[in-house]
């Protein structure tokens, strides 16, 4: 059973590593605010998986930590989406580079 557990953990780690790369690609290749937010959410999913595999010392503590992490990210999403909505209402654009150009 230990070999099976290690295999599952290895697959999860490789998956999270590839997802981190995809998220980094998405954050840098597009200047659309929403695309960048979605890429950050992909990164969050990858990091959550990564932390779960790496922290095997205390399962109960890790479960508590995971619950706290998910709560904070959910709050962060609400604020960022509210800022994007307000930004779109003012500037009628979702291009992040327009902040530097127009100071919207």
């Amino acid at each position: 059973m230990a070999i099976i557990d290690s295999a599952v953990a290895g697959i999860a780690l490789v998956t999270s590593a590839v997802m981190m790369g995809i998220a980094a690609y998405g954050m840098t290749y597009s200047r659309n605010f929403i695309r960048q937010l979605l890429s950050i959410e992909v990164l969050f999913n990858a990091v959550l998986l990564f932390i779960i595999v790496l922290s095997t010392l205390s399962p109960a503590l890790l479960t508590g930590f995971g619950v706290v992490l998910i709560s904070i990210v959910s709050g962060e999403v609400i604020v960022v989406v509210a800022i994007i909505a307000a930004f779109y209402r003012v500037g009628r654009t979702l291009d992040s580079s327009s902040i530097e150009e127009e100071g919207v």
Partner: protein
Amino acid sequence: MNPGQYLPLMASITGILMIFVSYLVVRSKDLVYASTSLAALGILNALMIGLLGYYIIAIFLTIVYVGAAVMFIIITVSMLGGRSKEIKDEYKGLFTGASVVTVALLIVSSLGAYLGYTRPSSIPASNVADSLLTGYTPVIALIFVALAATLIEAIAIARRG
């Protein structure tokens, strides 16, 4: 036949699906489809976490993250309009993505942490609550205040425009 022997196969299928759905989130032209793919990614992530043995986190991720946060993104993106003009820089993205994958895979292979991984036998919800409420009460209180402030701040920003 032990059903546990199918775990690596299920994890492999879930992992491949997760990578494919992540690619859809990043590359899908319509942002509504991209955010819907993010919901699928959250569910697949919960499935993978469940395969690793952390059922409470898997359930919490599905209910709070997919059910509330991602649904909020989908509804907002639908209201703003799914298709908008995007300025893209493919080479910059490819270079950054390849660099991050290389570094992450190097860390994974050098740590070898997955070799000693064992599925937790059973984590009762009461143990989790105990560890949170006894040792980390100030942290929990801080999170309650921060989330309440977050909600008020989000409403204020959205109303002000």
